[in-house]
């Protein structure tokens, strides 16, 4: 149990200054405006600049394209980037897939992909969900058919965030519809410039962009297969478990208890900052909101929820993070009234529009990386040990609706 301030030695202090300087230089007003306008969660110029410094895969040794940072160094890097809100979504999906590539990619492609990932030239995105598939990833219907040394892939994937800025998609396909559901799947790392792939933008009301990706007889070499044929579930489990458990292995207190949860809750933190400032500002009639104990109590209540949610670990923290942000943002809008509806850049916006943004952004957090229902199920079954419901489609793959 340790919540102390981390004392930095000279090299780490230097790193902190270096990253801070990097962010100031790279994350310009233009870069910010671009991100706000596109909702890409990605900035190519910053990404490549990070690659040059070895910061895409910072723990990797420098000869592999990393920066050889220790865990504290990684934490410093992460915090400086997060603090400034440098776009991170595509960086996140890329890192999530790397270990599966290391472990399962063929000799033919592995080193190239990893080198390009580290330099920033290769970005990876997740091809899991299908247009009518929802949370049932193992129910994938996108078909991959063997043709000699090649595979032909047809189907479509929803919510492939970052596809338009990525070079590869980590794609789950069905290679044998006759096997039980989880056994007929194969994973590929599909180059996104392959003919037959079409990427269409989908826009969330938070301003974020994701994509639907269509695969029309996409032909790729067997070199792009990850792991065994029909062994895709094993390959996917690594990244998926990492996304679902979201805990750190190391007991050094340098990871957030729940990475996803904290990334959601940071928005509530900023919103509470802004509402606290609003509360101490005089209104036209000379009163201040803070003079009303009910306002103080409301801010206190949301702070309590925030403080509890940020120490809620793993899958529980992922649910708590989303629930707390969703409820908290709505409550803050109620507290402030109509001015809270004004977005960034419009006259009268509170906290540069943070309240408006947090409220819109919050809704997506109930779905990112698996819905809160998926995580409640994980908690019920794995933490409480409740029995698994016997759904007809849990084991069997069926392409027709009953």
């Amino acid at each position, binding site marked *: 149990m340790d919540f102390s301030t981390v004392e930095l030695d000279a090299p780490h202090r230097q790193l902190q200054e270096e990253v801070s300087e990097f962010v100031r230089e790279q994350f310009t007003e233009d870069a910010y405006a671009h991100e706000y306008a596109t909702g890409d969660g990605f900035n190519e110029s910053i990404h490549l600049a990070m690659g040059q410094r070895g910061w895409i895969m910072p723990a990797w040794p420098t000869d592999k394209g990393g920066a050889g940072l220790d865990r504290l160094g990684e934490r410093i890097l992460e915090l400086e980037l997060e603090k400034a809100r440098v776009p991170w979504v595509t960086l996140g999906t890329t890192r999530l897939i790397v270990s599966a590539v290391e472990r399962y990619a063929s000799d033919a492609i592995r080193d190239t992909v990893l080198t390009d990932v580290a330099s920033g030239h290769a970005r990876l995105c997740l091809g899991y*969900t299908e247009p*009518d*598939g*929802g*949370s*049932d990833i193992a*129910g994938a219907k996108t078909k991959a058919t063997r043709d000699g040394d090649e595979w032909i892939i047809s189907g479509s994937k*929803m*919510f492939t965030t970052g596809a338009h800025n990525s070079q590869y998609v980590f794609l789950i396909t069905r290679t044998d519809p006759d096997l039980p559901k989880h056994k007929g799947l194969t994973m590929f790392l599909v180059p996104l410039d392959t003919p037959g792939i079409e990427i269409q933008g*989908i*826009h*969330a*009301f*938070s301003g974020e962009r*994701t994509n639907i990706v269509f695969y029309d007889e996409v032909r790729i070499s067997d070199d792009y297969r990850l792991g065994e044929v029909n062994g895709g579930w094993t390959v996917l489990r690594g990244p998926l478990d990492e996304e679902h458990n979201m805990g750190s292995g190391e007991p050094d207190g340098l990871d957030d208890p729940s990475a996803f949860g904290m990334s959601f809750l940071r928005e509530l933190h900023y919103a509470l900052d802004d509402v606290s400032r609003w509360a101490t500002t005089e209104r*036209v*009639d000379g009163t201040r909101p803070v003079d009303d104990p*009910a306002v103080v109590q*409301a801010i206190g209540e949301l702070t309590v929820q925030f403080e509890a949610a940020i120490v809620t670990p793993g899958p529980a923290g992922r649910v708590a993070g989303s629930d707390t942000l*969703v409820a908290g943002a*709505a409550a803050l*809008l*109620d*507290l*402030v*009234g*109509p*001015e*809270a*509806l*004004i*977005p960034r850049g*419009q*006259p*009268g916006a509170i906290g540069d529009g943070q309240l*408006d943004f947090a*409220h*819109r952004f919050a*809704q*997506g957090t*109930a*779905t990112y990386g698996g*819905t809160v*229902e998926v995580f*409640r199920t994980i908690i019920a079954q794995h933490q409480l040990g409740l029995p698994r419901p016997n*759904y*007809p*489609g*849990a084991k*069997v793959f*069926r392409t027709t*609706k*009953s």
Partner: protein
Amino acid sequence: MNPNELRRMDLTLSEEHESIQDLFANFFAKQSPTTVARAAEPTGFDEGLWDQIVDLGVTRMAIPESAGGDGAGILELTLVAEELGRAIAPVPLIEHIVATRLLAASGDSELEDFLEEAANGDRILGLALQPLSGRQFVSTAAVARDIVGFDGENLVIVTSSGARAHVGNQASLPFAWVDPGEESVRVVRSSGAERLYSTAQREWKTLTAAALAGMTEASLAIAVKFVKTRETMGVIVGTLQGISFPLADVSIGIEGARNLARRAAWFLDNEPETEAGLQAAAIAYASGVAMRGTTTTAHAQGGLGFTVEADASLYFLRAKGWALAGGSPLLDLKTVGELRISAVTAANQSKERRESWISAL
């Protein structure tokens, strides 16, 4: 409400009410599908729809007969507001109606022409929903040049010389800043301005509560349709209690919100001094239901409900804005609380209670 009072609690609609309901349900379904609300973004005003509504006579329907209108009550208007909400129709109808009624009630004879233009729909009136002690963020001011309000002493009409700059907002409402210090202000002659304004606020709360109930019900219908057919793990998503129970809760909330708004309307029409907190209660409750309801129903569609393309998003984004236009719902809670406390302390109910404190076992 004191549950021991011998009052009727008749929630059924009369045939006349049902025909009003049908008329407007059909009208909005036909003239204001969600594509109209979408096309009217970001200002939140569709002039063609406005003209049709005027042609339908709604802007005149709500004016007292003494002032040349049809004298409809607030209860009838809640039925209109529910359907307007269901269609998330991009017109400032509720504010216009309430502002018109307020001016008509003032009895200021010099407003006759002005009122006729409002009744005609040629002049769209907006409403400053809080007392105008300075600059105010008004939900109708980007569309309505004339904003009716209360300056703490008199009813006033604040008129801008040109169109006010629309301020973007997540609800796509025609919000703009109104500043009586910089715009032309006309004082309305009336006695009891404060009471009249308070009635107008209560009318607005009631009608907006009804609109929110309608909006939430339309949102729920989208989700129900979706989860009836969507499958996961070989079962229809809507059979999972993790989905169906929250939707049932939304449905429960809608029933309460709708009936509370109607009840608040009935008291405004019939016994405005009785249960004077009901209108504040109605909007505070409907506000919560609309938020939880549109959030739940958007989420029932998973990631799809979070996309701009999905109609669920239209409802989610408007829910907060419609509810907040009149100010923080927390102020309404305080109003209700004050009235609840003073009702108890005023009536010395100690005798009744001494007799009646008996376990309800």
